[in-house]
């Protein structure tokens, strides 16, 4: 487990593409200390590891998968009307270099 430090907080924030002030950074540390303390108690719960993590709100959803039918595309003016910069029918950004996936 990596230790929750001020440097780590800044690193995490940077990876989330957000900047934090010094005060914000400290507040995160304080808040997290409480969560850490509370959740470390959970580790002592009997048989906690045998419990299936609850990932969804209900366990008994009834639903069907969607049939493979395509719908009309969103009209382009609606798709782009909130976009800060467009070029033709596309969203424009400064040149992207390098790759992710």
């Amino acid at each position: 487990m990596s230790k929750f430090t001020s440097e780590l907080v800044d690193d995490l924030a940077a990876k989330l593409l957000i900047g934090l002030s010094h005060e914000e950074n400290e507040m995160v540390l304080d808040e997290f200390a409480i969560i850490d303390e509370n959740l470390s108690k959970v580790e002592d719960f009997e048989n906690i590891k045998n419990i299936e993590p609850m990932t969804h709100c209900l366990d008994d959803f009834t639903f069907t998968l969607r049939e493979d039918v395509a719908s009309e595309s969103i009209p382009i003016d609606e798709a782009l009307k909130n976009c800060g910069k467009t070029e033709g029918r596309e969203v424009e950004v400064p040149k992207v270099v390098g790759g992710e996936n």
Partner: protein
Amino acid sequence: MSKYKAVIGLEMHCELKSNSKVFSSGRNSYNETPNDNIAAVDMAFPGTLPVVNKKCVRDALMMSMVLNCKQPEYMYFDRKNYYYPDLPKGYQITQMDAPVGIDGHIEIECNGKRIPIDIHDIHLEEDAASLDHYYDTSCIDYNRAGVPLLELVTEPCLHSAEEAVAFLEHMRSAYKYCDVSEADTKKGQIRCDVNVSIMEPDATEFGTRVEIKNINSFGNVYDAINYEIKRQSELKMQGRYDEVEQETRRFDEESGTTIRMRSKVDAIDYKYFVDPNLPKFKIDKKWLEEIKKEIPLLALERKDKYMQELDLSDYDAGVIVKEREYAEYFEECLDLGIDAKTASNWLTTQILGEINREEVNLKDFYLTPVLLKQIIDEIKNGTISSKQAKEIFYKAVEEKKEPKSFISSDMAQISNKEELEKVIISILEENQSQVEAYKNGKDNLFDYFVGQVMKNTRGKANPVVTKEILKEKLDK
């Protein structure tokens, strides 16, 4: 060749064929017009939610079974979180925890040998948007965002670039046989990641693993693997193996080399977690059985069948099963009652020659098995010679007219035994000295007599009947 043993693992991403995208009802089709195949979810407008496409799940399950994988009891999806301008939601919906298939195995053929391949897993996920790059800007087209992808991950069980490409070809063929993907590398429908390490042939521990990401053709997979084996081997031989780092590289087509992207230390933590918007889906056993029944015979199985049951040569059978449409054409011929060898000969020579020359798909080829049969029947009836048959074939294809229309009575072969006998008797009489020589052991004169008959009948004599009569007369 390197003196070290190479260990290779593959990740193969293949776009699935469907009407709509995997988590939205946006169209899944190639579209030249940017942002013309988009649903609100594809651009991650606030409040939009993913909804799973049944066909994509079905197709993924089918491929999972083709790979002899285990299917999960419940299917669900995970979010892979990272930021990039081609990923509108800031996460990709994929499968980490419970993929549609795990622990599979198949057999492939490489250089005439069958080798086993172990499959780590196969999972269903969505594609990202595409970026068009200009001088100092990039433009984002979301048509591809949400297109269904199947990602297949092998165990590190391959040992050469040949094997890797043979595996990829095998899978490309399987996707096409199952009709779940066009599997066209030219359209970017298949992309691969490759990991390569080397080790002493007798070593038990793997060497340092290098990953090469996003290779878009099988040729490049081949070159990238060979380059990487060479690079790593040279460093090892020079005692500089510690310079081989666990890292991610990319293949540079121009130089034919791999180039470092980032090291393991900079690896991204994708913070996978189960997507709460997509409920766990219980996979019905009955549905699985239905899907299983719909799996067609795949290339290698068909090849075995053609060789064993129809007595085709390894080569011919191999050519026919190479593409699903070849095999389908072939089997349609068989269904029409055409003899397997005849069908195979026509398909592997004339027909494939023609479609390759004309660069058409066999599905769109004018001369369907039914029309081909017209020609073959006439040969069988002795109405036309095989030479004439070929001429008719090309005429029919060129003019797109039924072969029948080119078969005239004038063309008819002389198969009438009496008529031929007359011709043959007169020829033998005119060539007394050659008949003598033949009877004294000059066997090769037989062909001379056949030639004379043909000459006399302007090629219309039925060669089989001619030979029969000649033998009868000469061996008397």
